[in-house]
């Protein structure tokens, strides 16, 4: 076989450790993203007009001046919506376009359709809205006190904290806070919609959830789902931001295309994307932790206040995952956790890598840090003593199996000589007065599965064409994580064919229906398993043909590197011969595989069950150097032992660890979202919201695989990888805190993240009179 596949496989060998199947397209600039799709002649462009007030009654909307601008075709408001004005994913509490009230700055009120986006933006500046101001809440605790919750609170409980406190020698209380985070996918949100000859809609959307788009647009237009086709080639980054929040833009593009019966494209400017789309939820939490004299954590009590923004979006599911991860990697017999989703007048917050778990784990680590500081011991003494062990119970009732918390911790300590590193840091700090080093260990335990059990299903469609080439469609969306590469590997392994024979089709609702979003780190597991089922069914069928064709009597028949092998003997028959024969024999060479994760269940009425297929574990050691004169920091190294299972593609998986780690560190340090009291976003551009550049990366990132087999329930025993490593970044906060304490022993930790250079400098000189 010669030449390269059109989607650019970087390797033609049978070895499965292949490079990202998209990488050649990426380095040559040929990969097509939403905004690069060739436009149909006559395409129009849409721009949203949004509220400039965080809370108010919409009294008047004057569109006349905007409509006068040459090139403006139409301006649509909620009155033009033929179906339901509703984009809420879990709870129906979010209109596509505001009707009589606005609830946050950036809430879409109207959509301007013009010959170009430039004209639409000019027209937007001429729209005049009059509001009656209502009280604005931006603080979640204030919302809680006023009873402003987006939905009822959730309570997780195990053991009995009341009797637990009695067993404790030490009890400490405190507060911990984490900030929001912009997804800052390099490709902004967008959609391109056009009607076909019978008025059905086709929508190209930059979304992680094609079915969600299909369902929502159908609801908005008041049509059946089969009249809306959604197609996704790839995303320029998603990170959760394009899970629920891609629907508004597809909804507006779809609405415009339907009303005008014209192709309409809507691609957000960075500025619009930043103030109109949701972010990671900020949390503020109260904790109470109790330990025995031997440092065993006996009881943990938490109140977690999530800043949900003005509508529910995915907040119920995120709040739930927060509750699942409040104990991180530790076994705590008595837990009581209450979680509240607070309604504020900010853009509705949404999914972001980790999905509420990082916020929970920060609180757990803050509680341990607080205890360690008060007891004048090292946090790692508490951490190590409480790591969850085999057969211990998570507070939500699932038994810990393949509990790799302690093995990964021990492996990290040994492999990376952590005791020696810690001694070297101590020595360095004794010898330097204006530069200090700090360190932290960060264990992570993350549950894999959608916590909503029905979402854990997937389908895959496989065609073997009569020339032996293979086309695969799944519900997985490629957004840089390499899921398409893994899909190709699954099929190549099962058929034992050259991966270059295999083409990954776009993710499309007409080929694979009823998909779950590519999220929860589960894209490769769910879609891979469905694909595996399809490929194995096809393989059985074509091997039947092979048996008939060449080796009726043999015991064992298989395909190895495109050759038919009978009882260990290589025959002259190739994959191509076999497929041609199968086609002539009128064998079905297409298969639709289905997969539903077994074993998992969760009973919300008692908040107990077995919600996760498995857990991913790991331990990171993170080391920082702090310039105590200027308040600037540099991460010297992060050393990680990670529980990959049997990684099916270490190169891709390591890339996920490194990328997630960087995002996690940045969430803890430079990424600071700021709103003013009126609910206006101040960090509204890349010049005021900083994400890491190449110099922000730690000098060394060392990732070692824990040598333990993965579970069968993971695709090819290769564990989910997207989210768990994000939480290693939490160690950055505690490493900086450690360095600060070496310089300023009076520093009182407040557990408020992020640790920006400003916060660091003020902490270094805290409790000292103003300069």
């Amino acid at each position, binding site marked *: 076989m010669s030449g390269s596949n059109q989607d650019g496989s970087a390797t033609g060998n049978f070895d499965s450790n292949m490079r990202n199947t998209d990488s*050649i397209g990426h380095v040559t*600039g040929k990969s*097509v993203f939403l905004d690069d799709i060739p436009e149909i002649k006559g395409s129009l462009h849409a721009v949203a007009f949004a509220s400039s007030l965080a809370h108010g009654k919409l009294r008047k909307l004057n569109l006349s001046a905007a409509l006068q601008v040459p090139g403006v075709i139409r301006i649509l408001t909620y009155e033009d919506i033929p179906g339901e004005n509703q984009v809420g994913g879990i709870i129906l509490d979010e209109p596509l376009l505001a009707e009589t009230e606005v609830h946050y700055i950036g809430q879409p009120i109207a959509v301007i359709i013009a010959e170009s986006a430039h004209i639409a933006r000019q027209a937007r500046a001429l729209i005049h809205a009059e509001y009656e101001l209502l009280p604005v809440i931006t603080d979640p605790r204030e919302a809680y006190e006023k009873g402003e919750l987006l939905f009822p609170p959730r309570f997780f409980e195990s053991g009995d904290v009341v009797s637990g406190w009695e067993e404790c020698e030490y009890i400490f209380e405190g507060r911990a806070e984490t900030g929001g985070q912009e997804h800052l996918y390099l490709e*902004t949100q967008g959609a391109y919609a056009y009607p076909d000859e019978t008025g059905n809609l086709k929508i190209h959307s930059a979304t992680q959830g094609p079915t969600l788009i299909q369902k929502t647009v159908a609801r908005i237009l008041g049509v059946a789902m089969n009249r809306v086709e959604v197609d996704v080639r790839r995303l*320029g980054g998603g990170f959760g931001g394009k899970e629920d929040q891609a629907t508004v833009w597809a909804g507006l593009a779809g609405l415009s295309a339907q009303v005008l019966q014209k192709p309409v494209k809507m691609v957000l400017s960075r500025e619009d994307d930043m103030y109109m789309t949701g972010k990671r939820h900020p949390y503020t939490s109260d904790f109470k932790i109790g330990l025995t004299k031997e440092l065993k954590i006996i009881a943990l009590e938490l109140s977690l206040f999530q800043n949900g923004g003005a509508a529910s979006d995915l907040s119920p599911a995120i709040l739930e995952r927060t509750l699942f991860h409040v104990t991180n990697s530790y076994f705590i017999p008595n837990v009581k956790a209450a979680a509240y989703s607070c309604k504020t007048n900010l853009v509705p917050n949404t999914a972001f890598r980790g999905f509420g778990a990082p916020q929970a784990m920060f609180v757990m680590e803050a509680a341990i840090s607080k205890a360690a500081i008060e007891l004048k011991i090292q946090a790692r003494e508490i951490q190590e003593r409480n790591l969850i062990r085999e057969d211990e119970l998570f507070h939500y009732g699932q038994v810990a199996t393949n509990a790799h918390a302690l093995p990964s911790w021990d492996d990290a300590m040994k492999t990376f000589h952590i005791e020696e590193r810690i001694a070297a840091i101590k020595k360095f700090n004794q010898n330097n007065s204006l530069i200090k080093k700090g360190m932290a260990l960060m264990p992570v335990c993350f549950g894999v599965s959608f916590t909503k059990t029905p979402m854990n299903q997937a389908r895959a469609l496989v065609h073997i064409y009569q020339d032996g080439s293979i086309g695969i469609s799944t519900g997985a969306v490629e957004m*840089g994580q390499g899921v398409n590469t893994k899909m190709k590997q699954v099929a190549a392994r099962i058929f034992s064919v050259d991966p270059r024979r295999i083409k990954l089709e776009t993710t499309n609702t007409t080929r694979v229906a009823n998909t779950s979003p590519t999220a929860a780190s589960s894209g490769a597991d769910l879609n891979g398993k469905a694909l595996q089922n399809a490929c194995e069914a096809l393989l059985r069928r074509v091997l039947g043909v092979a048996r008939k064709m060449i080796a009726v009597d043999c015991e064992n028949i298989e395909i190895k590197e495109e050759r038919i092998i009978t009882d260990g003997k290589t025959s002259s028959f190739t994959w191509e011969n076999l497929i041609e024969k199968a086609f002539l024999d009128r064998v079905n060479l297409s298969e639709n595989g289905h997969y539903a994760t077994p074993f998992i269940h969760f009973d919300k009425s008692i908040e107990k069950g077995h919600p996760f297929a498995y857990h991913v574990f790991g331990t990171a050691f993170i080391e920082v150097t702090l310039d105590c*004169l200027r*308040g*600037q920091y540099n991460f010297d190294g992060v050393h990680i032992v990670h529980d990959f299972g049997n990684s099916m593609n270490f190169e891709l998986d390591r890339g996920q660890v490194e990328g997630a780690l960087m995002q996690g560190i940045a969430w803890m340090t430079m990424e600071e979202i700021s709103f003013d009291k009126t609910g206006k976003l101040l960090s509204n551009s890349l010049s005021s919201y900083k994400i890491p550049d190449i110099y922000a*990366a730690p000098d060394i990132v060392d990732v070692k695989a824990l040598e333990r087999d993965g579970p069968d329930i993971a695709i090819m025993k290769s564990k989910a990888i997207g989210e768990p490593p994000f939480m290693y970044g939490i160690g950055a906060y505690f490493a900086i805190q450690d360095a600060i304490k070496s310089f300023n022993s009076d520093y009182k930790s407040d557990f408020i993240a992020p640790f920006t250079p400003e916060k660091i400098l003020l902490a270094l000189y805290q409790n000292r009179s103003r300069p």
Partner: protein
Amino acid sequence: MIEFILNDVLIKTNSPPGLPLLDFIRQEMGLMGTKIACREGDCGACTLMVGELDGDKVSYKTIVSCLTPLVNVQSKHVVSIEGLNGDQLSHVQQAIVDHSGTQCGFCTPGFVISLMTKSLSDANSNLDETLASVDGNICRCTGYKSIERAVKDIWEVNQRRKDKDAPQWMVKNKYLPEYFLSIHDRLSNIILPDERIKKSNVILGGGTDLMVQKADSIMHAGLQTLREKDILHGIMIEDDHCILQAGATVTELLTSLELRSIFPGIQKYFKLLSSTQIRNMGTLGGNIVNASPIGDLIVFFLALDAKLQINSPDGGRRSVALKDFYLDYKKIDLKQGEYVEALSFNIPLHGYQFNFEKVSKREHLDIASVNSAILLHLQDNLIKDVRLSAGGVGPIPMFLEKTSSFLQGRRPDVESLSEANSILQDEISPIDDIRGSEEYKRLLLRQLFIAHFIELCPDQIRMDQLQEILIQI
């Protein structure tokens, strides 16, 4: 009519001179490999390579096309990712594939352009300098470690070139399409348009501020470009002073041998100024008239007591001290029709030392929270002469006159610095904003003020005393 070469094609266009090059490339030429991600020069996804005649060769550099008005590429060779693709992957592309330096791929063409430009320009770069070529390219997926591994490969390949001509060598190894070899002759055939400064024109430097602030309004404005070598360009030493023409880019300042001999640390300081792409575009004059209270170059030159040469197109000329040029927040001493022609300063005499400090939320490619510069002359352990400046601590970039004069004649020890800091704190008036709170900016300037002395005369600062003072003051 604007005329330039785009990849292998000669372009003659009547598109508006202020049209962002990015939109021309994508919308008018349909070249979709160049991506739109921020439109303010902060991400590098739209990075392009721009070459101009430089003697018998063509010199290439990177720019961000979102902030480059079309007029600024007149007579140049513009290269997008499509113009770099050959029959096989270049060493840059191959290394990124091999090391999985691309995930979602949206930023990748920008990285390829930056690294190809580096490969074309400087054979003697070390690994750090090669890495620095992507200091203006943001990637949200990889966490950069895989990109670093790729850059190491690229650097190693580039080493093999030794002193051979870059384009020839790269074409021979199939790292670069062959048409690059004809670009010099083809550029030479493009006739330069008339470039005199006219009264009616908006004078545009690199566009790095104006195109962010007023992109829509300058799209159709009559634009006066400074981007040709004979207009407001050049760095000159005349007797005891140095003259910098307003059109000099930050890169030109940074690489000037004259300035390097005056400021041995200039590369370290200027590395903190924005990114490679923006330094290639942004001009000294632009930074001065943009009048940001935190303008890095302004603060730098305030410590040198620089003077501005101001011209009007009708021939009037006057000189104003840089420190007097700033009247109030974003208000400057420049009348309608006048323009800044040059900045000059007396070259510090032997015995003078200079230092520049800047702290921002992200160390590189960020706007400062506070910046500060100092010119210091010590004699017999006494401060003979000192000039201190700071940005981000008032409505204008400040020359700290009172603090400077207080220090005159004193020992640069911890006690003097402590007293000077009280004066310093009275002299400034920072406010709370997105770059930091007032409290932070006051503390930070104190720290940077001390940092100057630790950098310049560490033997005068007793660490035990300093620790004490850091607590007390």
